[in-house]
């Protein structure tokens, strides 16, 4: 069978599965819609969290980024996993004990202020929308390459599927669909990785093959270092970014991960505080399977790519070169007119432009794997994009129906009406996300990375201080959030949009790039919040009691509206 038939078959089967689960697990109350009734087992929740967290970027782009960045790519690996340690140790158990539906709920109640709640709502919606647009785009790319429909049709099909199970099932439907999506995506990621590891190193476990010898008796990484330095690139295992910048980017990604509303809210769905702790551990186990495989795939892919194309005549190029050229993601210009493809570091002599995003998608073809593996990767990419999109849409719809309408504008609505509003908000959000996916503003990719900086400089300090300092009051928290997010946003906007020409290390504050500036914003947030709180009066007695209450596990009821 050809790739196309396999793709229709496998992608079609996975969609039938998701819809089946959605029908089986539709939500009947706001509690089921927002937090799946608080009855999800920690292992299932860990799996759902992993699928929720690992987006189209993790599945499609990350290994490709690392393949071209070498050791500097470690910022993503450590940054996007280390945040779970912070989440498990500092946030998840306490927020579960608090027992509400959303992050703005916590901020609003702990800081006894509707201003604080509104700041949190706006941050949550902004972060989630920038993120979701990237997911819909990922759906479009996968559809257009593998099913040869155009990107618009691809995005619309994706919207229809997410609409079906997010609007119908809410958190309950999303959680169980995400469990299935995790299984699809991890299988799709591991199968080609195992094949390629076997082909290159004879070791079926990619994490070990990564450090093993290739057929010619040289360690893979030494061989790769040799190949890339010969072509004029920096050695694969050496970094070029300044240490301070690597440090700050990693920290901003970690803290940003721990501050992302769609991740935090997942810990409201388990029955007990104890389960919230365990669930974070399981989530990281499921994430680590992909995140420790990704750097191995990156090294395999870079080696394979160089060996397959460099200095080879274009006329003899493998078919995947032409099929990706059609999508515009590979470009070849024969600068020295010798009919061969030169792939080197020097821009004047380099003839190959290769988009990082195709490394994972093209990997099975580069390694000449069977057609069904290629189809499987398409289904996996879709699972990753759809699961994250659904989680984000839920945060957006909850922020609107619960935090904005029920808690602020229309406190009198019934549970049934609130549920209806939540579903309408989700439907509207899907349409906006789809529009952004079809007509992406040029800056989506950049903005997604900054969502972490913004989350790091706003939510994270406010929540940490809310749990670990009884003295922290609303004046301190609001001042901290506002200054933290403002200076971070200003720094990013200046270097990325106002004056991109100045975006060079010499102009950066302390040598920290806009990507890593969330770390500075976070430090400023902590400092401002602490200083302002020290100068203003302590929070009321009942708020201090809330803090004492959430520090002790006993007595956690199911999440409810209070």
């Amino acid at each position, binding site marked *: 069978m050809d790739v196309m038939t396999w793709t229709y078959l496998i992608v079609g089967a996975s969609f039938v599965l998701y819809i089946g689960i959605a029908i089986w697990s539709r939500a009947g109350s706001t509690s089921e819609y927002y937090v799946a009734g608080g009855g999800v087992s920690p292992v299932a929740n860990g799996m759902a969290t992993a699928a929720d967290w690992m987006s189209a970027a993790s599945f499609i782009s990350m290994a490709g980024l*690392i393949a071209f960045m070498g*050791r500097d*790519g*470690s910022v993503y*690996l*450590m940054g996007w*996993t*280390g945040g*779970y*340690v912070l989440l*498990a*140790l*500092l946030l998840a*158990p306490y927020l579960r004990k608090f027992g509400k539906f959303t992050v703005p709920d916590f901020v609003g109640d702990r800081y006894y202020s509707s201003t604080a709640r509104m700041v949190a709502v706006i941050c949550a919606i902004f972060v989630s929308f920038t993120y979701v647009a990237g997911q819909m785009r990922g759906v479009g790319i996968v559809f257009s390459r593998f099913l040869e429909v155009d990107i618009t049709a691809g995005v619309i099909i994706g919207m229809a599927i997410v609409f079906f199970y997010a609007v119908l099932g809410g958190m309950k439907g999303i959680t169980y669909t995400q469990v299935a999506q995790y299984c699809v995506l991890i299988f799709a990621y591991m199968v080609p990785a195992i094949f390629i590891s076997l082909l290159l190193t004879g070791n079926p476990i990619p*994490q*070990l093959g*990564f*450090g*093993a*010898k290739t057929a010619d008796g040289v*360690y*893979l*990484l*030494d061989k790769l270092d040799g190949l890339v330095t010969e072509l004029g690139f920096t050695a694969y*295992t050496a*970094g070029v970014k300044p*240490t301070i910048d*690597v*440090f700050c980017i*990693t*920290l901003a990604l970690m803290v940003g991960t721990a501050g992302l509303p769609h991740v935090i809210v997942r810990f409201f769905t388990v029955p*007990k*505080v*104890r389960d919230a*702790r*365990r669930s*974070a*551990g399981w989530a*990281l*186990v499921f994430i*680590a399977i992909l*995140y*420790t495989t990704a*750097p191995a795939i990156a090294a395999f892919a870079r080696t394979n790519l160089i060996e397959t194309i460099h200095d080879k005549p274009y006329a003899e190029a493998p078919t995947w070169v032409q099929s990706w050229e059609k999508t515009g993601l590979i470009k070849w210009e024969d600068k020295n007119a010798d009919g061969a493809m030169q792939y080197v570091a020097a821009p004047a002599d380099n003839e190959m432009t290769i988009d990082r995003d195709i490394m994972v998608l093209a990997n099975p073809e580069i390694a000449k794997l069977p057609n069904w593996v290629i189809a499987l990767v398409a289904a996996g990419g879709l699972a990753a994009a759809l699961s994250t999109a659904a989680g984000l849409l839920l945060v957006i719809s909850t922020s609107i129906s619960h935090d904005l309408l029920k808690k602020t504008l229309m406190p009198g609505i019934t549970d049934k009406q609130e549920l209806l509003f939540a579903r309408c908000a989700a439907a509207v959000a899907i349409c906006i996300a789809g529009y952004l996916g079809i007509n992406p503003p040029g800056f989506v990719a950049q903005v997604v990375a900054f969502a972490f900086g913004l989350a790091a400089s706003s939510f994270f300090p406010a929540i940490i201080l809310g749990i670990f300092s009884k003295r922290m009051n609303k004046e301190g928290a609001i001042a901290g959030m506002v200054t933290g997010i403002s200076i971070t946003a200003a720094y990013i906007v200046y270097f990325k949009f106002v004056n991109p020409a100045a975006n060079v290390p010499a102009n950066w504050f302390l040598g920290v790039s806009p990507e890593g500036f969330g770390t500075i914003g976070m430090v400023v947030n902590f400092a401002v919040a602490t200083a302002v709180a020290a100068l203003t009066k302590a929070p009321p007695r009942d708020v201090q009691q809330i803090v*004492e209450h959430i*520090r*002790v*596990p*006993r*007595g*956690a009821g199911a999440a409810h509206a209070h």
Partner: protein
Amino acid sequence: MAENTSAAAEAYWKANIRLVLWLLAVWFAVSYGAGILLADWLDQFRIAGFKLGFWFAQQGSIYVFVALIFVYVWRMNKLDREHDVHED
């Protein structure tokens, strides 16, 4: 009575903070220490085909992160029982 409860809660919270600080010290040491600040120095050592600093940055730190969370779960469950604040 109320004073006893608050003293007990205080002791539980102190023990909790101590545990978390220890675990975060390890978290910092493997990622920012071994994976970033000391990576170049550690690269002179090797395990199989990996330079050690590179291995910590792309593999080792992630394994340690997973282990840290499960150690935390295990120690906290014990602590909850010792201080009689566990659920059920």
